[in-house]
């Protein structure tokens, strides 16, 4: 008699990398970074950012828009201007005037005080594996708050271009309020960098109708001709760069800083650094948290952010040079 011999199990002690990644995500990332040269699961080296791409003015009903994509993270940003009339009662808007607000100096922070910029970030349905339908998550709200702060702190938008004047007296009669909406189409980590770049590109492509205060109608009138639309006046450039930091232990290589982390890396690494680089190698913002580190680590991030700034700057000059 012969008995059927079961085929030998194909090496029961090994499993494919994808299983390893699911079972022990941290060890999986550590093993990758310990190889020479250090390589991340995505094939990038620790200091490589993903290549960004940019399209502007793809939304026809917004005053300005941009699509930014870095790797598998894609965001759309639309800017729409609405008129905020300062005269109480007109168009059923009531504006609360605070003390000392009627000055017209250049550095007056009207944009912050009057709330002339409204930022919102929305996660598109099914943009990520962890997406749950419902009200904005804490994460989305925190990113929105950071974008709003970045926009106000860097003072990129000059208040001049948002004022609507009475042509005779040169008095401010109304303002343009910019509603900036960012929709995340696909999320693969580092949503802040992409969202911020899309806001900046959208603002650069924004053209608002020329508006003036009409004394007879006591209201704001816009010229309908597209040729009379005016670009916003923006001051300078600022680009954010985000990093995740993983500690491999002193004997195995110490701390590794990963530029532009993807979703898997963000899930594993607790420590984060965000740097907003400005022109002339200046820094406008640093945010660090999630782990015990040193100043040198932050300085390395600043250096990488300055490099990244140049890459974005070039992309913007190419992408926005043609479309206006």
């Amino acid at each position, binding site marked *: 008699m012969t008995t059927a011999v079961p085929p030998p199990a194909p090496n029961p002690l090994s499993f494919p990398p994808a299983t390893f990644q699911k079972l022990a995500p941290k060890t999986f990332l550590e093993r990758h970074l310990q190889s020479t040269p250090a390589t991340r699961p995505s094939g990038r080296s620790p200091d490589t950012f993903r290549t960004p791409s940019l399209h502007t003015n793809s939304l026809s009903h917004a005053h300005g828009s941009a699509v930014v994509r870095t790797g598998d993270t894609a965001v759309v940003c639309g800017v729409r201007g609405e008129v905020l009339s300062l005269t109480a009662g007109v168009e059923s808007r009531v504006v609360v005037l605070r003390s000392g607000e009627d000055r017209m100096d250049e550095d007056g922070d009207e944009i912050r005080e009057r709330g002339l910029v409204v930022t919102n970030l929305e996660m598109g349905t099914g943009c990520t594996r962890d997406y749950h339908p419902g009200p904005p998550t804490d994460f989305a*709200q925190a990113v929105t708050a950071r974008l709003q*702060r970045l926009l106000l*702190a860097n003072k990129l938008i000059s208040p001049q271009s948002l004022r609507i004047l009475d042509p005779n007296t040169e008095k401010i009669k109304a303002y343009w309020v910019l509603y900036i909406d960012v929709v995340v189409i696909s999320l693969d980590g580092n949503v802040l960098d992409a969202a911020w770049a899309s806001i900046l590109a959208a603002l650069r492509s924004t053209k608002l109708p020329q508006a003036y205060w009409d004394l007879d109608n006591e209201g704001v009138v816009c010229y309908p001709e597209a040729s009379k639309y005016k670009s916003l006046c923006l001051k300078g450039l600022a680009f954010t760069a985000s990093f995740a930091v993983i500690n491999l232990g002193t004997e195995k290589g110490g701390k590794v800083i990963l530029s532009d982390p993807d979703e898997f890396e963000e899930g594993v690494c607790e420590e984060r650094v965000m740097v907003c680089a400005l022109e002339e190698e200046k820094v406008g913002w640093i945010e*660090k948290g*999630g782990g*015990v580190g040193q*100043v040198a680590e932050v300085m390395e991030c600043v*250096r990488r952010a300055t490099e990244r700034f140049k890459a974005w700057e070039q992309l913007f000059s190419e992408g926005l040079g043609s479309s206006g």
Partner: protein
Amino acid sequence: MADGSAQYTDGPTTLLASVNGPIEVKARDEIPLEAFLEITIRPSAGVTSVREKHLEALLRSAISPLILRTMHPRTLLQITLQIIQHEHASSAHALHTLLASAIVVAMLALVDAGVPMKAMLAAAFVEDASAGAAHVFGYTITGAESEGGPGEGLVFVESDGVFDGKGFVEASEVGRKKCLEIGELMKDWVRGKAERDMRYRLK
């Protein structure tokens, strides 16, 4: 009754923190190997807005790396901060001063609640008026490497304004010194509290 609480006043800012934990966690939030950290910040007036959510996220990134969350897996650690008073002296830096105080008060409440931690954290607000930059630095003040802690290190940074690398390094040094000063005060408060609590045993 909270497991631990602290009130902290720094100039025009007064904050109250309470810590509860480890307590039962909702099934949705349960983490198999760690405690779930819930941080809530309540404004002095009005309802919680995006601003508070932003603060919560910042506070979380500052204190979560120091809490030994693996000590109480599948539980909830609840940290609630009530802003009692926060005057807006200059609106530009309101968030920074609030953040520095929030870190200190949350740390003290965590110590009071007896939550296991790797180290204590102190935070300081540094303003560089000439460059128009404002920083908040969070440095560990306890947990030396010889005692098995993470060693002295920079845990938290929140800086804005316009500055360069050199300015940042200088500010971080000022921040470190300030943190150590505040750290000494924090240690004194904890010592005083422990002494009061243990008075009947010492006699």
